[in-house]
Protein backbone atom coordinates (compact mmCIF):
# COMPACT_ATOMS: atom_id res chain seq x y z
CA UNK A 1 0.00 0.00 0.00
CA UNK A 2 2.27 2.76 1.24
CA UNK A 3 5.93 1.99 1.09
CA UNK A 4 8.27 4.45 2.80
CA UNK A 5 10.01 6.60 0.24
CA UNK A 6 13.37 5.34 -0.92
CA UNK A 7 16.44 7.58 -0.77
CA UNK A 8 15.95 8.32 -4.45
CA UNK A 9 12.36 9.42 -3.89
CA UNK A 10 13.35 11.64 -0.96
CA UNK A 11 16.10 13.08 -3.12
CA UNK A 12 13.57 13.72 -5.90
CA UNK A 13 11.21 15.48 -3.49
CA UNK A 14 14.08 17.56 -2.09
CA UNK A 15 15.13 18.52 -5.59
CA UNK A 16 11.55 19.48 -6.42
CA UNK A 17 11.24 21.70 -3.37
CA UNK A 18 14.65 23.23 -4.08
CA UNK A 19 13.54 23.98 -7.66
CA UNK A 20 10.42 25.69 -6.31
CA UNK A 21 12.52 27.70 -3.86
CA UNK A 22 14.87 28.82 -6.63
CA UNK A 23 12.08 29.44 -9.15
CA UNK A 24 11.50 33.12 -8.28
CA UNK A 25 15.15 33.89 -9.02
CA UNK A 26 14.72 32.87 -12.64
CA UNK A 27 11.22 33.85 -13.79
CA UNK A 28 9.01 36.91 -14.10
CA UNK A 29 6.48 37.89 -11.43
CA UNK A 30 3.70 36.71 -13.69
CA UNK A 31 5.06 33.19 -13.77
CA UNK A 32 5.62 33.25 -10.00
CA UNK A 33 1.97 34.22 -9.54
CA UNK A 34 0.90 31.28 -11.70
CA UNK A 35 2.95 28.90 -9.59
CA UNK A 36 1.46 30.41 -6.47
CA UNK A 37 -2.00 29.51 -7.81
CA UNK A 38 -0.81 25.99 -8.54
CA UNK A 39 0.50 25.67 -4.99
CA UNK A 40 -2.79 26.97 -3.61
CA UNK A 41 -4.92 24.40 -5.38
CA UNK A 42 -2.31 21.74 -4.60
CA UNK A 43 -2.84 22.53 -0.90
CA UNK A 44 -6.59 22.08 -1.37
CA UNK A 45 -6.16 18.83 -3.29
CA UNK A 46 -3.64 17.31 -0.88
CA UNK A 47 -5.86 18.24 2.08
CA UNK A 48 -8.97 16.82 0.46
CA UNK A 49 -7.06 13.59 0.06
CA UNK A 50 -7.08 13.04 3.85
CA UNK A 51 -10.85 12.75 4.04
CA UNK A 52 -11.84 12.04 0.44
CA UNK A 53 -8.95 9.99 -0.90
CA UNK A 54 -7.72 8.03 2.10
CA UNK A 55 -10.91 7.74 4.13
CA UNK A 56 -13.34 7.64 1.21
CA UNK A 57 -15.67 10.39 2.45
CA UNK A 58 -16.44 12.76 -0.45
CA UNK A 59 -16.20 16.13 1.30
CA UNK A 60 -17.28 19.39 -0.31
CA UNK A 61 -16.05 21.32 2.71
CA UNK A 62 -12.64 22.60 1.47
CA UNK A 63 -14.28 25.88 0.44
CA UNK A 64 -15.70 26.28 3.95
CA UNK A 65 -12.28 25.96 5.59
CA UNK A 66 -10.59 28.03 2.91
CA UNK A 67 -13.05 30.86 3.50
CA UNK A 68 -12.87 30.46 7.24
CA UNK A 69 -9.09 30.87 7.15
CA UNK A 70 -9.35 33.81 4.77
CA UNK A 71 -11.81 35.69 6.98
CA UNK A 72 -9.86 34.85 10.14
CA UNK A 73 -6.76 36.46 8.66
CA UNK A 74 -8.77 39.45 7.41
CA UNK A 75 -10.45 40.15 10.74
CA UNK A 76 -7.38 39.53 12.90
CA UNK A 77 -5.02 41.53 10.71
CA UNK A 78 -7.43 44.43 10.88
CA UNK A 79 -7.22 44.04 14.66
CA UNK A 80 -3.45 44.40 14.39
CA UNK A 81 -2.28 40.79 14.55
CA UNK A 82 0.85 39.57 12.77
CA UNK A 83 0.09 37.79 9.48
CA UNK A 84 1.77 34.51 10.40
CA UNK A 85 0.01 34.40 13.75
CA UNK A 86 -3.33 34.80 11.97
CA UNK A 87 -2.44 31.78 9.80
CA UNK A 88 -1.87 29.72 12.93
CA UNK A 89 -5.11 30.90 14.52
CA UNK A 90 -6.97 30.24 11.26
CA UNK A 91 -5.60 26.69 11.20
CA UNK A 92 -6.69 26.12 14.81
CA UNK A 93 -10.12 27.54 14.12
CA UNK A 94 -10.50 25.32 11.05
CA UNK A 95 -9.52 22.31 13.14
CA UNK A 96 -12.00 23.19 15.90
CA UNK A 97 -14.84 23.70 13.42
CA UNK A 98 -14.00 20.40 11.71
CA UNK A 99 -13.98 18.68 15.09
CA UNK A 100 -17.37 20.06 16.10
CA UNK A 101 -18.98 19.46 12.70
CA UNK A 102 -17.31 16.12 12.18
CA UNK A 103 -19.10 14.46 15.08
CA UNK A 104 -22.57 14.77 13.55
CA UNK A 105 -21.86 14.74 9.81
CA UNK A 106 -19.35 11.91 9.76
CA UNK A 107 -22.19 9.61 10.77
CA UNK A 108 -23.50 10.10 7.24
CA UNK A 109 -22.09 8.15 4.36
CA UNK A 110 -21.70 8.63 0.61
CA UNK A 111 -24.02 11.13 -1.03
CA UNK A 112 -25.54 12.22 2.26
CA UNK A 113 -22.16 13.16 3.62
CA UNK A 114 -21.33 15.06 0.40
CA UNK A 115 -24.52 17.08 0.63
CA UNK A 116 -23.99 17.85 4.32
CA UNK A 117 -20.47 19.15 3.72
CA UNK A 118 -21.75 21.19 0.80
CA UNK A 119 -24.24 22.70 3.23
CA UNK A 120 -21.44 23.59 5.63
CA UNK A 121 -19.72 25.75 3.02
CA UNK A 122 -23.02 27.43 2.14
CA UNK A 123 -23.72 28.05 5.83
CA UNK A 124 -20.42 29.86 6.30
CA UNK A 125 -20.97 31.92 3.18
CA UNK A 126 -24.35 33.02 4.47
CA UNK A 127 -22.80 33.78 7.82
CA UNK A 128 -20.09 35.95 6.25
CA UNK A 129 -22.76 37.61 4.14
CA UNK A 130 -24.76 38.66 7.17
CA UNK A 131 -22.38 39.31 10.06
CA UNK A 132 -21.10 42.79 10.80
CA UNK A 133 -17.63 41.61 11.78
CA UNK A 134 -17.07 40.12 8.29
CA UNK A 135 -18.30 43.25 6.56
CA UNK A 136 -21.35 41.41 5.25
CA UNK A 137 -22.00 41.36 1.53
CA UNK A 138 -19.91 44.51 1.05
CA UNK A 139 -16.76 42.59 1.78
CA UNK A 140 -13.81 43.41 3.99
CA UNK A 141 -10.50 45.18 3.34
CA UNK A 142 -7.17 43.95 4.66
CA UNK A 143 -4.10 46.03 5.46
CA UNK A 144 -2.02 46.46 2.31
CA UNK A 145 1.35 44.77 2.31
CA UNK A 146 4.22 47.24 2.04
CA UNK A 147 7.07 46.86 -0.44
CA UNK A 148 7.29 46.63 -4.20
CA UNK A 149 5.68 44.01 -6.44
CA UNK A 150 8.90 41.99 -6.59
CA UNK A 151 8.88 41.72 -2.83
CA UNK A 152 5.24 40.89 -2.18
CA UNK A 153 4.93 38.44 -5.07
CA UNK A 154 7.78 36.48 -3.51
CA UNK A 155 6.44 36.91 0.01
CA UNK A 156 3.08 35.33 -0.90
CA UNK A 157 4.69 32.70 -3.09
CA UNK A 158 6.97 31.50 -0.29
CA UNK A 159 4.12 31.59 2.24
CA UNK A 160 2.05 29.37 -0.04
CA UNK A 161 5.04 27.10 -0.66
CA UNK A 162 5.55 26.73 3.08
CA UNK A 163 1.95 25.66 3.67
CA UNK A 164 2.11 23.25 0.71
CA UNK A 165 5.30 21.58 1.96
CA UNK A 166 3.75 21.25 5.42
CA UNK A 167 0.63 19.64 3.93
CA UNK A 168 2.58 17.16 1.81
CA UNK A 169 4.90 16.17 4.65
CA UNK A 170 1.94 15.66 6.97
CA UNK A 171 0.31 13.48 4.38
CA UNK A 172 3.47 11.47 3.89
CA UNK A 173 3.83 10.72 7.60
CA UNK A 174 0.14 9.95 8.05
CA UNK A 175 0.10 7.46 5.18
CA UNK A 176 3.20 5.67 6.41
CA UNK A 177 1.89 5.19 9.92
CA UNK A 178 -0.93 3.46 11.72
CA UNK A 179 -3.29 6.39 11.20
CA UNK A 180 -3.09 6.14 7.41
CA UNK A 181 -3.74 2.40 7.49
CA UNK A 182 -6.81 2.96 9.67
CA UNK A 183 -8.18 5.58 7.27
CA UNK A 184 -7.71 3.27 4.28
CA UNK A 185 -9.40 0.44 6.20
CA UNK A 186 -12.41 2.70 6.73
CA UNK A 187 -12.49 3.53 3.03
CA UNK A 188 -12.33 -0.11 2.01
CA UNK A 189 -14.97 -1.42 4.42
CA UNK A 190 -16.05 0.55 7.45
CA UNK A 191 -17.81 -2.32 9.27
CA UNK A 192 -14.89 -4.65 8.74
CA UNK A 193 -12.55 -1.88 9.91
CA UNK A 194 -14.36 -1.53 13.21
CA UNK A 195 -14.38 -5.31 13.63
CA UNK A 196 -10.64 -5.26 13.03
CA UNK A 197 -10.26 -2.85 15.93
CA UNK A 198 -10.19 0.54 14.18
CA UNK A 199 -11.91 3.25 16.22
CA UNK A 200 -13.71 4.47 13.12
CA UNK A 201 -15.40 7.52 14.66
CA UNK A 202 -12.13 8.86 16.06
CA UNK A 203 -10.21 8.20 12.87
CA UNK A 204 -12.77 9.83 10.62
CA UNK A 205 -12.75 12.95 12.78
CA UNK A 206 -8.95 13.08 12.72
CA UNK A 207 -9.03 12.85 8.91
CA UNK A 208 -11.61 15.62 8.69
CA UNK A 209 -9.58 17.84 11.03
CA UNK A 210 -6.41 17.23 9.00
CA UNK A 211 -8.30 18.10 5.83
CA UNK A 212 -9.36 21.44 7.36
CA UNK A 213 -6.05 22.80 8.66
CA UNK A 214 -4.13 23.47 5.45
CA UNK A 215 -6.99 24.95 3.39
CA UNK A 216 -7.56 27.38 6.27
CA UNK A 217 -3.90 28.44 6.13
CA UNK A 218 -3.99 28.68 2.35
CA UNK A 219 -7.10 30.83 2.65
CA UNK A 220 -5.21 33.15 5.00
CA UNK A 221 -2.42 33.67 2.49
CA UNK A 222 -4.99 34.20 -0.27
CA UNK A 223 -6.76 36.85 1.79
CA UNK A 224 -3.65 38.91 2.57
CA UNK A 225 -2.65 38.76 -1.08
CA UNK A 226 -6.11 39.73 -2.38
CA UNK A 227 -6.34 42.57 0.20
CA UNK A 228 -10.12 42.46 -0.17
CA UNK A 229 -12.58 39.63 0.53
CA UNK A 230 -16.16 39.01 -0.48
CA UNK A 231 -18.08 35.98 0.82
CA UNK A 232 -18.76 34.71 -2.71
CA UNK A 233 -15.03 34.83 -3.57
CA UNK A 234 -13.72 32.53 -0.88
CA UNK A 235 -16.67 30.33 0.06
CA UNK A 236 -16.80 29.33 -3.60
CA UNK A 237 -17.78 25.71 -4.21
CA UNK A 238 -15.35 25.75 -7.14
CA UNK A 239 -12.50 25.45 -4.62
CA UNK A 240 -14.01 22.21 -3.36
CA UNK A 241 -14.65 20.88 -6.84
CA UNK A 242 -11.15 21.72 -8.00
CA UNK A 243 -9.69 19.88 -5.03
CA UNK A 244 -11.72 16.79 -5.84
CA UNK A 245 -11.09 16.80 -9.59
CA UNK A 246 -7.36 17.31 -9.15
CA UNK A 247 -7.09 14.47 -6.67
CA UNK A 248 -9.00 12.24 -9.06
CA UNK A 249 -6.89 13.26 -12.04
CA UNK A 250 -3.65 12.56 -10.19
CA UNK A 251 -4.75 9.56 -8.20
CA UNK A 252 -6.97 9.39 -5.14
CA UNK A 253 -5.36 8.14 -1.97
CA UNK A 254 -1.73 8.66 -2.98
CA UNK A 255 0.59 11.39 -1.75
CA UNK A 256 1.91 12.42 -5.15
CA UNK A 257 -1.41 12.12 -7.00
CA UNK A 258 -3.04 15.36 -5.83
CA UNK A 259 0.21 17.25 -6.51
CA UNK A 260 0.48 15.88 -10.03
CA UNK A 261 -3.22 16.52 -10.59
CA UNK A 262 -3.02 20.11 -9.40
CA UNK A 263 -0.03 20.81 -11.62
CA UNK A 264 -1.62 19.28 -14.72
CA UNK A 265 -5.02 20.83 -14.16
CA UNK A 266 -3.74 24.36 -13.63
CA UNK A 267 -1.44 24.16 -16.62
CA UNK A 268 -4.18 22.70 -18.76
CA UNK A 269 -6.67 25.29 -17.60
CA UNK A 270 -4.15 28.05 -18.30
CA UNK A 271 -3.45 26.71 -21.78
CA UNK A 272 -7.14 26.26 -22.61
CA UNK A 273 -7.84 29.76 -21.37
CA UNK A 274 -5.26 31.09 -23.80
CA UNK A 275 -6.26 28.88 -26.74
CA UNK A 276 -10.06 28.81 -26.45
CA UNK A 277 -11.09 31.69 -24.23
CA UNK A 278 -14.76 31.28 -25.06
CA UNK A 279 -15.02 27.55 -24.59
CA UNK A 280 -12.39 26.89 -22.01
CA UNK A 281 -14.91 25.88 -19.34
CA UNK A 282 -16.54 23.46 -21.75
CA UNK A 283 -13.18 21.89 -22.54
CA UNK A 284 -12.40 21.56 -18.86
CA UNK A 285 -15.75 19.85 -18.37
CA UNK A 286 -15.00 17.39 -21.15
CA UNK A 287 -11.62 16.63 -19.64
CA UNK A 288 -13.21 15.95 -16.26
CA UNK A 289 -15.65 13.50 -17.84
CA UNK A 290 -12.83 11.77 -19.72
CA UNK A 291 -10.80 11.46 -16.53
CA UNK A 292 -13.69 9.88 -14.67
CA UNK A 293 -14.31 7.46 -17.53
CA UNK A 294 -10.78 6.41 -18.42
CA UNK A 295 -8.70 7.17 -15.34
CA UNK A 296 -10.98 6.53 -12.39
CA UNK A 297 -8.01 5.82 -10.17
CA UNK A 298 -5.93 8.62 -11.63
CA UNK A 299 -2.71 9.05 -13.53
CA UNK A 300 -0.58 7.64 -10.73
CA UNK A 301 -2.40 4.31 -10.82
CA UNK A 302 -2.14 4.08 -14.61
CA UNK A 303 1.54 5.00 -14.59
CA UNK A 304 2.15 2.30 -11.99
CA UNK A 305 0.40 -0.30 -14.11
CA UNK A 306 2.19 0.82 -17.25
CA UNK A 307 5.51 0.55 -15.43
CA UNK A 308 4.79 -3.02 -14.39
CA UNK A 309 3.18 -4.18 -17.64
CA UNK A 310 4.80 -2.07 -20.34
CA UNK A 311 3.46 0.62 -22.67
CA UNK A 312 1.82 -1.96 -24.92
CA UNK A 313 -0.79 -2.63 -22.26
CA UNK A 314 -1.96 0.99 -22.03
CA UNK A 315 -4.96 0.29 -24.26
CA UNK A 316 -5.95 -2.74 -22.21
CA UNK A 317 -5.73 -0.77 -18.97
CA UNK A 318 -7.91 2.07 -20.28
CA UNK A 319 -10.38 -0.42 -21.70
CA UNK A 320 -10.67 -2.31 -18.44
CA UNK A 321 -11.31 1.01 -16.70
CA UNK A 322 -14.40 1.72 -18.81
CA UNK A 323 -15.67 -1.81 -18.49
CA UNK A 324 -16.50 -1.10 -14.88
CA UNK A 325 -19.56 0.71 -16.16
CA UNK A 326 -21.01 -2.27 -17.99
CA UNK A 327 -23.71 -3.91 -15.95
Amino acid at each position, binding site marked *: MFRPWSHIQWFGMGAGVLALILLPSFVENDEIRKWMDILMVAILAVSWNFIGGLTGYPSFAPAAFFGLGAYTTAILMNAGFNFFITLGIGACLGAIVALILGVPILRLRGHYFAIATFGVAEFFRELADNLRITGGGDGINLPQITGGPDYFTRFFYFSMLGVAVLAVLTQYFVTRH*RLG*YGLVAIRE*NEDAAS*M*TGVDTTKYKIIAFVLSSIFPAMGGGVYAYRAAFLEPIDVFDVLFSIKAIVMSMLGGVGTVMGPLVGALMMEYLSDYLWGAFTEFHSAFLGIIIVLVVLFLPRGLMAVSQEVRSRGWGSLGVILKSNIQRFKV
Partner: protein
Amino acid sequence: MGVFGSDSQEQHTEVQGVSETLLEGRGVTKRFGGLTAVSSVDFTVQKGEILGVIGPNGAGKTTLLNCITGLDPANEGEILFHGERIETMKPHTITRKGVARTFQIVQPFSGLAVRENVVMGALFGSQKSKKEVRRAQGIADEMLAFVGLSDKAAQLASQLTLAERKRLEFAKSLATEPEVLLLDEVNAGLNTMEIENAISLIHKVREQGVTILVIEHLMKVITGLSDRVIVLHHGEKIAEGLPRDVTSDEQVIKAYLGEKYVAMMKKLDEES
Protein backbone atom coordinates in the same frame (compact mmCIF):
# COMPACT_ATOMS: atom_id res chain seq x y z
CA MET B 1 7.36 -18.02 21.02
CA GLY B 2 4.61 -19.51 18.93
CA VAL B 3 2.25 -17.75 16.64
CA PHE B 4 0.00 -16.83 19.54
CA GLY B 5 2.62 -16.12 22.15
CA SER B 6 0.38 -14.21 24.52
CA ASP B 7 -2.31 -16.84 24.62
CA SER B 8 -0.07 -19.81 25.28
CA GLN B 9 1.43 -17.88 28.19
CA GLU B 10 -1.96 -17.41 29.73
CA GLN B 11 -2.69 -21.08 29.33
CA HIS B 12 0.06 -21.92 31.79
CA THR B 13 -1.70 -20.00 34.51
CA GLU B 14 -4.88 -21.99 34.01
CA VAL B 15 -5.39 -24.70 36.62
CA GLN B 16 -5.76 -27.99 34.84
CA GLY B 17 -9.14 -29.66 34.98
CA VAL B 18 -10.92 -26.57 36.24
CA SER B 19 -12.83 -24.93 33.43
CA GLU B 20 -12.98 -21.19 33.34
CA THR B 21 -15.85 -19.27 31.82
CA LEU B 22 -14.47 -16.94 29.18
CA LEU B 23 -17.59 -15.59 27.55
CA GLU B 24 -21.07 -15.59 29.00
CA GLY B 25 -24.48 -14.38 27.89
CA ARG B 26 -27.40 -13.84 30.26
CA GLY B 27 -30.84 -13.30 28.84
CA VAL B 28 -29.56 -11.82 25.59
CA THR B 29 -32.47 -10.41 23.61
CA LYS B 30 -32.48 -8.60 20.29
CA ARG B 31 -35.57 -7.23 18.62
CA PHE B 32 -36.00 -5.76 15.16
CA GLY B 33 -39.30 -3.89 15.30
CA GLY B 34 -41.88 -6.51 16.20
CA LEU B 35 -39.60 -9.43 15.44
CA THR B 36 -37.61 -10.96 18.29
CA ALA B 37 -34.56 -12.35 16.55
CA VAL B 38 -32.84 -13.50 19.71
CA SER B 39 -35.01 -14.18 22.72
CA SER B 40 -33.52 -14.34 26.20
CA VAL B 41 -30.64 -16.63 25.32
CA ASP B 42 -28.17 -17.77 27.99
CA PHE B 43 -24.87 -19.28 27.03
CA THR B 44 -21.39 -19.84 28.40
CA VAL B 45 -18.18 -20.46 26.52
CA GLN B 46 -15.46 -22.23 28.52
CA LYS B 47 -11.85 -21.41 27.94
CA GLY B 48 -10.30 -23.71 25.36
CA GLU B 49 -13.48 -25.36 24.09
CA ILE B 50 -15.21 -25.31 20.75
CA LEU B 51 -18.84 -24.39 21.24
CA GLY B 52 -21.14 -25.00 18.30
CA VAL B 53 -24.25 -22.92 17.72
CA ILE B 54 -26.67 -24.57 15.35
CA GLY B 55 -30.15 -23.89 14.15
CA PRO B 56 -32.10 -23.61 10.92
CA ASN B 57 -31.93 -20.52 8.75
CA GLY B 58 -33.34 -17.49 10.53
CA ALA B 59 -32.82 -18.98 13.98
CA GLY B 60 -30.92 -15.91 15.16
CA LYS B 61 -27.39 -17.31 15.08
CA THR B 62 -25.74 -14.43 13.26
CA THR B 63 -27.77 -11.91 15.24
CA LEU B 64 -26.42 -13.43 18.45
CA LEU B 65 -22.90 -13.01 17.07
CA ASN B 66 -23.64 -9.41 16.16
CA CYS B 67 -24.77 -8.80 19.75
CA ILE B 68 -21.59 -10.30 21.18
CA THR B 69 -19.31 -8.30 18.89
CA GLY B 70 -21.19 -5.05 19.40
CA LEU B 71 -22.05 -4.65 15.73
CA ASP B 72 -25.75 -4.76 16.56
CA PRO B 73 -26.02 -4.33 20.34
CA ALA B 74 -28.57 -6.40 22.29
CA ASN B 75 -31.74 -4.76 23.59
CA GLU B 76 -31.69 -6.69 26.84
CA GLY B 77 -29.40 -8.97 28.78
CA GLU B 78 -25.77 -9.02 29.72
CA ILE B 79 -22.73 -10.28 27.87
CA LEU B 80 -19.63 -10.86 29.93
CA PHE B 81 -16.09 -11.43 28.76
CA HIS B 82 -13.72 -12.41 31.57
CA GLY B 83 -16.54 -11.33 33.89
CA GLU B 84 -16.57 -7.82 32.44
CA ARG B 85 -19.77 -6.53 30.84
CA ILE B 86 -19.18 -5.78 27.17
CA GLU B 87 -22.71 -5.52 25.77
CA THR B 88 -22.62 -1.73 25.50
CA MET B 89 -19.07 -1.46 24.21
CA LYS B 90 -18.24 -0.50 20.65
CA PRO B 91 -17.09 -3.17 18.19
CA HIS B 92 -13.50 -1.98 18.06
CA THR B 93 -13.19 -2.02 21.86
CA ILE B 94 -14.56 -5.55 22.03
CA THR B 95 -12.14 -6.65 19.32
CA ARG B 96 -9.22 -5.18 21.25
CA LYS B 97 -10.30 -6.99 24.40
CA GLY B 98 -9.74 -10.25 22.55
CA VAL B 99 -13.00 -11.19 20.82
CA ALA B 100 -12.56 -11.61 17.06
CA ARG B 101 -14.97 -12.83 14.44
CA THR B 102 -15.30 -13.83 10.84
CA PHE B 103 -18.30 -12.97 8.70
CA GLN B 104 -20.55 -15.41 6.89
CA ILE B 105 -20.46 -13.10 3.91
CA VAL B 106 -16.74 -12.41 3.90
CA GLN B 107 -15.76 -8.78 4.46
CA PRO B 108 -12.28 -8.28 3.05
CA PHE B 109 -10.75 -4.90 2.27
CA SER B 110 -11.17 -5.81 -1.38
CA GLY B 111 -9.05 -3.06 -2.87
CA LEU B 112 -6.04 -3.95 -0.74
CA ALA B 113 -3.50 -6.73 -1.04
CA VAL B 114 -4.04 -9.89 0.98
CA ARG B 115 -1.10 -9.08 3.21
CA GLU B 116 -2.38 -5.57 3.93
CA ASN B 117 -5.73 -7.00 4.96
CA VAL B 118 -3.98 -8.99 7.66
CA VAL B 119 -1.73 -6.06 8.60
CA MET B 120 -4.88 -4.16 9.58
CA GLY B 121 -5.77 -6.84 12.10
CA ALA B 122 -2.29 -6.80 13.60
CA LEU B 123 -2.13 -3.00 13.69
CA PHE B 124 -5.45 -2.38 15.37
CA GLY B 125 -6.83 -5.55 16.85
CA SER B 126 -4.77 -6.27 19.90
CA GLN B 127 -4.92 -4.35 23.15
CA LYS B 128 -1.17 -4.13 23.12
CA SER B 129 -1.50 -2.95 19.54
CA LYS B 130 1.45 -3.29 17.27
CA LYS B 131 1.62 0.38 16.51
CA GLU B 132 4.55 -0.03 14.22
CA VAL B 133 3.64 -0.90 10.65
CA ARG B 134 6.75 -3.00 10.17
CA ARG B 135 6.05 -5.20 13.20
CA ALA B 136 2.45 -5.63 12.09
CA GLN B 137 3.70 -6.76 8.70
CA GLY B 138 5.80 -9.42 10.42
CA ILE B 139 2.75 -10.73 12.29
CA ALA B 140 0.71 -10.65 9.10
CA ASP B 141 3.28 -12.83 7.34
CA GLU B 142 3.15 -15.35 10.19
CA MET B 143 -0.64 -15.48 10.00
CA LEU B 144 -0.65 -15.89 6.23
CA ALA B 145 1.75 -18.80 6.57
CA PHE B 146 -0.49 -20.27 9.29
CA VAL B 147 -3.58 -20.30 7.06
CA GLY B 148 -1.58 -21.19 3.95
CA LEU B 149 -1.98 -18.00 1.97
CA SER B 150 1.66 -16.91 1.87
CA ASP B 151 1.93 -17.31 -1.88
CA LYS B 152 -1.09 -15.02 -2.42
CA ALA B 153 0.15 -12.25 -0.11
CA ALA B 154 0.69 -9.70 -2.87
CA GLN B 155 -2.61 -10.33 -4.69
CA LEU B 156 -5.64 -8.14 -4.26
CA ALA B 157 -8.15 -9.61 -1.82
CA SER B 158 -10.82 -9.35 -4.51
CA GLN B 159 -8.88 -11.78 -6.71
CA LEU B 160 -9.08 -14.68 -4.25
CA THR B 161 -11.50 -17.58 -4.54
CA LEU B 162 -14.26 -17.85 -1.94
CA ALA B 163 -12.39 -20.54 0.01
CA GLU B 164 -9.27 -18.38 0.03
CA ARG B 165 -11.23 -15.33 1.12
CA LYS B 166 -12.59 -17.33 4.04
CA ARG B 167 -9.05 -18.23 5.00
CA LEU B 168 -8.12 -14.56 4.69
CA GLU B 169 -10.91 -13.77 7.17
CA PHE B 170 -9.27 -16.28 9.50
CA ALA B 171 -5.85 -14.71 9.14
CA LYS B 172 -7.24 -11.22 9.61
CA SER B 173 -9.09 -12.14 12.79
CA LEU B 174 -6.20 -14.19 14.16
CA ALA B 175 -3.86 -11.24 13.64
CA THR B 176 -5.88 -9.38 16.28
CA GLU B 177 -4.58 -11.99 18.77
CA PRO B 178 -7.99 -13.07 20.02
CA GLU B 179 -8.74 -15.17 23.06
CA VAL B 180 -12.04 -16.21 21.59
CA LEU B 181 -12.81 -16.46 17.90
CA LEU B 182 -16.39 -16.36 16.64
CA LEU B 183 -16.82 -18.12 13.31
CA ASP B 184 -19.94 -17.42 11.28
CA GLU B 185 -20.66 -20.26 8.85
CA VAL B 186 -17.11 -20.63 7.64
CA ASN B 187 -18.22 -23.52 5.49
CA ALA B 188 -21.09 -21.89 3.64
CA GLY B 189 -20.53 -22.09 -0.08
CA LEU B 190 -17.51 -24.40 0.15
CA ASN B 191 -17.16 -27.85 -1.44
CA THR B 192 -16.38 -31.01 0.54
CA MET B 193 -12.63 -30.74 0.12
CA GLU B 194 -12.62 -27.10 1.17
CA ILE B 195 -14.82 -27.86 4.17
CA GLU B 196 -12.32 -30.48 5.33
CA ASN B 197 -9.52 -27.96 5.04
CA ALA B 198 -11.50 -25.37 6.94
CA ILE B 199 -12.25 -27.82 9.75
CA SER B 200 -8.63 -28.84 10.12
CA LEU B 201 -7.75 -25.14 10.24
CA ILE B 202 -10.25 -24.61 13.07
CA HIS B 203 -8.62 -27.46 15.01
CA LYS B 204 -5.20 -25.96 14.36
CA VAL B 205 -6.38 -22.63 15.76
CA ARG B 206 -7.74 -24.31 18.89
CA GLU B 207 -4.43 -26.09 19.43
CA GLN B 208 -2.89 -22.62 19.71
CA GLY B 209 -5.06 -21.99 22.75
CA VAL B 210 -7.84 -19.97 21.12
CA THR B 211 -11.38 -20.61 22.30
CA ILE B 212 -13.88 -20.97 19.49
CA LEU B 213 -17.58 -20.35 19.05
CA VAL B 214 -18.70 -21.66 15.71
CA ILE B 215 -22.00 -21.11 13.93
CA GLU B 216 -23.05 -23.71 11.44
CA HIS B 217 -26.23 -25.01 9.99
CA LEU B 218 -24.79 -28.27 8.73
CA MET B 219 -25.39 -30.80 11.54
CA LYS B 220 -22.79 -33.18 10.18
CA VAL B 221 -20.04 -30.59 10.36
CA ILE B 222 -20.87 -29.32 13.80
CA THR B 223 -21.06 -32.71 15.48
CA GLY B 224 -17.57 -33.58 14.32
CA LEU B 225 -16.21 -30.22 15.34
CA SER B 226 -17.70 -29.08 18.63
CA ASP B 227 -17.17 -30.14 22.22
CA ARG B 228 -20.57 -28.77 23.12
CA VAL B 229 -23.53 -27.53 21.13
CA ILE B 230 -26.40 -25.14 21.70
CA VAL B 231 -29.39 -25.12 19.39
CA LEU B 232 -31.33 -21.99 18.48
CA HIS B 233 -34.78 -22.01 16.93
CA HIS B 234 -36.86 -18.89 16.29
CA GLY B 235 -34.43 -16.98 18.47
CA GLU B 236 -34.78 -19.26 21.48
CA LYS B 237 -32.37 -21.76 22.86
CA ILE B 238 -34.13 -25.13 22.59
CA ALA B 239 -31.31 -27.50 23.50
CA GLU B 240 -27.79 -27.61 24.88
CA GLY B 241 -25.35 -30.43 25.46
CA LEU B 242 -22.99 -32.88 23.85
CA PRO B 243 -23.29 -33.08 20.07
CA ARG B 244 -24.65 -36.64 19.96
CA ASP B 245 -27.27 -35.95 22.66
CA VAL B 246 -28.43 -32.81 20.96
CA THR B 247 -28.74 -34.37 17.53
CA SER B 248 -31.01 -37.11 18.86
CA ASP B 249 -33.16 -34.60 20.75
CA GLU B 250 -36.72 -34.74 19.45
CA GLN B 251 -37.25 -30.97 19.58
CA VAL B 252 -34.09 -30.39 17.58
CA ILE B 253 -35.11 -32.85 14.92
CA LYS B 254 -38.49 -31.18 14.75
CA ALA B 255 -36.90 -27.79 14.30
CA TYR B 256 -34.68 -29.08 11.54
CA LEU B 257 -36.88 -31.53 9.69
CA GLY B 258 -40.41 -30.54 10.63
CA GLU B 259 -43.10 -32.17 12.77
CA LYS B 260 -44.33 -34.40 9.94
CA TYR B 261 -40.96 -36.06 9.64
CA VAL B 262 -40.86 -36.78 13.37
CA ALA B 263 -44.36 -38.27 13.27
CA MET B 264 -43.38 -40.44 10.34
CA MET B 265 -40.28 -41.69 12.09
CA LYS B 266 -42.31 -42.51 15.20
CA LYS B 267 -44.78 -44.46 13.12
CA LEU B 268 -41.96 -46.40 11.48
CA ASP B 269 -40.52 -47.12 14.93
CA GLU B 270 -43.84 -48.43 16.21
CA GLU B 271 -44.33 -50.64 13.17
CA SER B 272 -40.96 -52.26 13.61
